[in-house]
């Protein structure tokens, strides 16, 4: 399964100048780095509010660039009724994030003007 939804990410790449598209990917990368740290720290500390907030922001960032599997995993983390503990969800999120970044970078490299 692809780490990004091409209909969303490619639409972005088509709609925007390459520089803007690259800036969005860089912003997404920054968001992922910061939010992944916050998510893991909150999980370790048992800080449920912090864990949910970080997961919410991750879901939003992922949705913006079409990283659908990452968004779904983050929403599992956000859901208080979810049966999956952080120890299970956080590694999944990490893997989805890495895959999404890799595919986005490839898309950016293919976009005109790259």
């Amino acid at each position: 399964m692809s780490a990004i939804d091409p209909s969303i990410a490619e639409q972005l790449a088509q709609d925007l100048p390459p520089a803007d598209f690259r800036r969005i990917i860089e912003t997404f990368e920054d968001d992922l780095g910061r939010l992944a740290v916050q998510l893991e720290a909150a999980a370790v500390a048992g800080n449920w509010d912090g864990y949910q907030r970080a997961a919410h922001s991750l879901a939003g960032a992922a949705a913006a660039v079409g990283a659908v599997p990452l968004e779904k995993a983050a929403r599992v983390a956000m859901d208080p009724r979810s049966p999956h503990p952080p120890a299970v969800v956080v590694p999944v999120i990490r893997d989805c994030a890495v895959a999404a970044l890799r595919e986005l970078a490839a898309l950016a490299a293919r976009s005109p003007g790259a």
Partner: protein
Amino acid sequence: MSGATGRVLLVEDTPTQAEVAKAHLRDLGHEIRAVETATEALEVARSWDPDAILLDLELPDFSGLEVLKTLRAEGSETAVIVITANASMNTAVEVMRAGATDFLPKPYPKAKLVFTLQNAMEKRALVIEKRALESELQAARALTSRQGFMGFIGASPAMQAVYRTIENVAASRANIFITGESGTGKELAAEAVHKASPRAGKPFVALNCGAIPRDLLESEIFGHVKGAFTGATETRLGAAKQADGGTLFLDEIGEMPLEMQVKLLRFVQTGSFQPVGGSRPEKVDVRFVCATNRDPLAEVEAGRFREDLYYRLYVVPIELPPLRARGQDVLLIARAFLTQFSREERKRFRSFTPEAEGAILAYPWPGNVRQLQNVVRNVVVLHEGERVEAAMLPATLLRAGPRAAPAPAAIPTAIPTALAEPAMPAAEPAPAAWQPPPEPAPAPSAEPAGIEIMPLAEMERRLILAALDQTGQDVPRAASLLEINPSTIYRKLQSWRGAKQRVTA
């Protein structure tokens, strides 16, 4: 799409989402500000008055829905497009009920965002245009229906009586005597009498007896012939001749010196007068309309106004009520001024908030319509936005408690109200912007420290001289600062000079 540009506030706490939105909007020409919290969103929405807000629902401090509800409760008409991920139909219904202009699920392509934003901004522009048209229509109706009459705005019973009197007497030749506090519209009433009369096609000549030096008054009214006195290098027609066939309005008739009153009486009785330095009388057909802010009968009793002249002029009295006795009229007038001044100053103000209207209603308006006019113009000039907030009004209005029950329409007091008000405490620095006069002096125990207590007349003298100093001896500007007629300053200066001469004589 019209391609109209405007101010867009982006409320989004996720940097990637914010970056996507900004990238989509970048080439549309809008001025964009971005914030990340609900608190910041409210602050910027209030201070910057954006045309549209792109509002995320899930924000770190509180929800975007609360932001939307708060803004709508405050009367904001900004277009709000709610943007959120994984939104349900219930959420969409809820935000639309709360006053959202539109709803946009994430993720969205650029075309959809642009289309939605443009639609929302056009919808908002139509709302504003509709409101402006309604306001203008209301003002126009006020001028043609019983919400207004011949330039007056007001639907109160007191003003209905004024309109009826003007209509009933306009066609007759009877002289009119208008009384009312400063700023109640005495000249407007005089003009209304003239316009509603068969003399409407002839001149309406207004003369302020209090603003003309005593020595020149006769010449101003009756004219003079060349060489009549030093400086009379040309024969000059007076107001009486200029008003032939029409209406002669003598404002502040109570300020006319007694010796001049004798000459006016003869003119009123015979319709003829003799220009200064002239050798033969001239006859004209003039209708007299006079006005004063004093109690004319009290002036007669005090010997300052001739009784015979009083009875010649005081044929049909028209008493103009003070603004504080006109109930909701104050809001009709304030709204009409707001529409007028917003158009003149190219501002976007359309209405007052309920709090601002409450403050306007509660204030007693000692300077009447003229003071209200100054306050509204001041607000329009100094502020931005679509609605006048209470905080934009001068502090004195906000400090004023609920006003007393409307005073019965009584003969006005002998002292002009603006001067009867206490002066600005000396301890307070002069405000940069115009401020209405303060409320009547509080009880001694409530007085702020540092106010030098002195006779009111002395305080009045100091204040007038200070205003003259501040304006470089420019009497009209000083009068404007003090919210009194320039003639009042001339009169005071004359009386002080007279007192000084008597002391030194």
